């Protein structure tokens, strides 16, 4: 069905469309893994265009991992193809009778039963579906065995290793008996002023290429963050107990470049090519080939598990892609298990007799397999942080999560604004909405608490705007790409002049909507905190040794944050806000 113009402009696209459609369907949804839940797959109005980073597509659903609003995006070529097939948003609901894949060929939709795909890895599935359709040029997003087994942090994978990683969107697909989605499309993408688009991007590509960090970025991509954070004293190590990893030089971007990297990959339309293709040429993981890791995986499967063998990280990364599980959630949960066994909070019999220890990559590989297969202790871990804590409440002080989502690999103890960012991120402890670590480390000494709140809210406004437009935020964050240019792009595409402020206003309003979805599921102030460890366990190692998040300062920041958003002291948006989202889609 075609969307109305008013709707399209107000909600922009991507996460905007998804949140609104989810909100409208919310009264019917009981269980994130029930057939009644919906999965919205929505690229944005800039996705697929001649434009740097125009690759993103968003998956929006009531999240299996947290039970609240969830979204997660993937790059690669899936979003551009979906738009070319004629869809700005695909809404999936119900459940197929047998394991199936969806085949969308330029507007023609078919559900194809495919029981032969049961238990297959995400990459194998992509291959098999391409073979069945006899085309290398179709785009196939698939879940692995973990998605079928409803692992609550299962991913959706496309283009080898572009993942919709967080929130468990793969489990939503699994719950619908949907193994894969294959796409082919050839339609023109709507652009009101193609000449303006052409000029803007010719200039944008020059600006990016002229940035002094451009070629370094192409070489290492996000892997450069390992060395940066370790030097700054902020590289999560051994389940967030330490902030400096003594073997960081074994798992950083330089090590990767020197010994493992064999090529670059890029998402659609992006000159930055931050994807690294790595191959293990020697040793027991010889023959392991994967696109990755990027920073989060290098940390959560590396330093945070005490792993100093880069080849083992690549193996873990490859297994996570094939099984279809999130490297962050998996890494954080495994780290928690190792610490729990080491400190006696759990006994080896709780973890199937494994004598878990830091840096033991064989055990880590085995645990990843157990999670994907829901075997033994893996069945508990597969439930995510909430299920783990129900089973073992004694792990509360050591399991690093917010709202059931395991925290990303950025430590907030030296930068309290990042603690607030995690506490108030609408999907859980993820860095995607606001990442303020670098800014506060540089300039934080001069900040007032009001500045901190303003900066978190600004980031939670501009970053989700990228997620509404369907573009990647990295050109802006990493190479200083001027954010006002996105308003120029949106104006060229819609033919209606827009300022950045107007777009930011829409993004800011949308944050109220995602909050409303979550507060309707019981979220309130009590849930808006970083993990206990961030308040209680002083940083070990590095220049911020001894730092913790100050609890009373945090409470003040949180209250101030609610005031700025016009939410109640308990973090609930007022009735009048809810009324602004009652409009229709058409």
């Amino acid at each position, binding site marked *: 069905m075609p969307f109305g113009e008013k709707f399209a402009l107000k909600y922009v696209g991507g996460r905007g469309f998804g949140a609104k459609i989810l909100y409208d369907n919310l009264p019917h949804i009981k269980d994130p893994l029930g057939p009644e839940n919906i999965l919205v797959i929505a690229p944005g109005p800039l996705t*697929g*265009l*001649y434009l740097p980073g125009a690759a993103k597509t968003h998956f929006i659903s009531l999240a299996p991992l947290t039970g609240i609003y969830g979204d997660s995006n993937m790059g690669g*070529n899936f979003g*551009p193809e979906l738009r*070319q097939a004629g869809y700005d948003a695909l809404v999936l609901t119900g459940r197929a009778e047998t394991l199936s894949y969806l085949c969308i060929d330029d507007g023609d939709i078919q559900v194809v039963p495919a029981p032969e795909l049961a238990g297959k890895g995400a*990459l194998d599935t992509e291959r098999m579906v391409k073979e069945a359709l006899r085309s*290398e*040029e179709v785009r196939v997003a698939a879940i692995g065995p973990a998605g079928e087994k409803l692992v609550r942090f299962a991913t959706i994978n496309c*283009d*080898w290793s572009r993942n919709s990683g967080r929130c468990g969107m793969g489990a939503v697909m699994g719950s619908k008996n949907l193994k894969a989605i294959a796409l082919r*499309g*050839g*339609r*023109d*993408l709507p*652009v009101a002023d*193609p*000449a303006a*688009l*052409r000029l803007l*991007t*010719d200039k944008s*590509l020059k600006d*990016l*290429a002229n940035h002094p960090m451009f070629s370094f970025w*192409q070489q290492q991509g996000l892997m450069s963050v390992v060395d940066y954070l370790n030097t700054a004293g902020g590289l999560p190590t051994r389940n967030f107990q330490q902030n400096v990893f003594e073997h960081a030089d074994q798992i950083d971007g330089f090590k990767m470049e020197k010994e493992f990297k*064999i*090529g*670059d*990959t*890029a*998402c*659609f*339309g*992006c*000159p*930055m*090519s931050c*994807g690294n*293709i790595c191959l293990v040429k020697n040793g027991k993981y010889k023959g392991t*080939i*994967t*696109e990755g890791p990027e920073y989060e995986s290098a940390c959560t499967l590396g330093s945070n598990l005490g792993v100093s063998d880069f080849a083992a990280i690549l193996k873990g990364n490859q297994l996570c892609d094939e099984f279809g599980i999130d490297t962050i959630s998996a890494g954080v949960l495994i780290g928690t298990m190792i610490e729990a066994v080491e400190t006696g909070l759990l006994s080896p019999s709780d973890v199937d007799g494994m004598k878990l220890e830091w840096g033991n990559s064989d055990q880590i590989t085995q645990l990843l397999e157990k999670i994907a297969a829901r075997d033994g202790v893996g069945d508990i871990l597969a439930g995510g942080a909430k299920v783990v804590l129900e089973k073992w409440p004694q792990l509360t002080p050591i399991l690093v999560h917010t709202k059931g989502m395991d925290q990303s690999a950025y430590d907030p103890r030296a930068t309290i604004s990042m603690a607030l960012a995690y506490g108030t991120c609408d999907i859980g402890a993820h860095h995607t909405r606001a990442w303020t670590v670098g800014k506060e480390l540089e300039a934080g000494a001069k900040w007032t608490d009001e500045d901190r709140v303003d900066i978190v809210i600004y980031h939670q406004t501009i970053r989700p705007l990228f997620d509404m437009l369907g573009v990647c935020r990295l050109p802006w964050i990493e190479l200083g790409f001027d954010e006002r240019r996105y308003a120029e792009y949106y104006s060229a595409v819609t033919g209606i002049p827009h300022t950045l402020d107007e777009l930011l206003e829409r993004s800011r309003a949308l944050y109220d909507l995602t909050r409303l979805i979550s507060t309707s599921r019981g979220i309130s102030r009590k849930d808006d905190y970083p993990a206990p460890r961030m308040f209680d366990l002083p940083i070990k190692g590095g220049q911020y040794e001894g730092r913790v998040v100050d609890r009373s300062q945090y409470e003040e920041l949180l209250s101030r944050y609610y005031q700025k958003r016009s939410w109640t002291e308990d973090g609930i948006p007022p009735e009048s806000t809810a009324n602004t989202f009652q409009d229709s889609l058409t």
Partner: protein
Amino acid sequence: MPKRLSVVPERCSGCRLCESVCALQHFGVSNPKKAAIRVIALYPHPVIRMPIVCRQCAHPKCRENCPTDAISVDNGVVRIDAEKCVSCRQCVVSCPFGAIFVHDDIPIPFKCDLCGGHPQCVEQCPKGALQYVPEHELGEANRVGSVLRYAHMKEVEYVEKGERKKLRYAQIGREQSE
């Protein structure tokens, strides 16, 4: 001097900016499927990303197989004459590279015309995977590469005016390259 569009697949990241700019240049639309260049990415075995684009063959198969003589080579560019073309797609299937394309919206097959000597895909490729080079340079990098691979390079380090330097040389007496 004639120039050639040359592809270096090892450098291609698969970003498809070439496709986007080509479609805008030739058809004025944002539609990578209307580009006369297409990036094919294979993984994980073998891992390769490679832009497919017309080589402007001197003895083109497409011309050989065209039943209506619609294809000619004009100043180094293989062209399809819209007047003569009956859109039978023979050229599409006979091109050994698959570098002639079709689209429902476009009445005849289309292919690279080198943008009148300023190929935009080359201009916008962020990786140097597409190059527009004088014909005599084609293969030169490979020729030099072959020599370097063949020669068993040894290194000697020395100091000149206080600066450490390296000199490489081929070892005499080794017969086979690796």
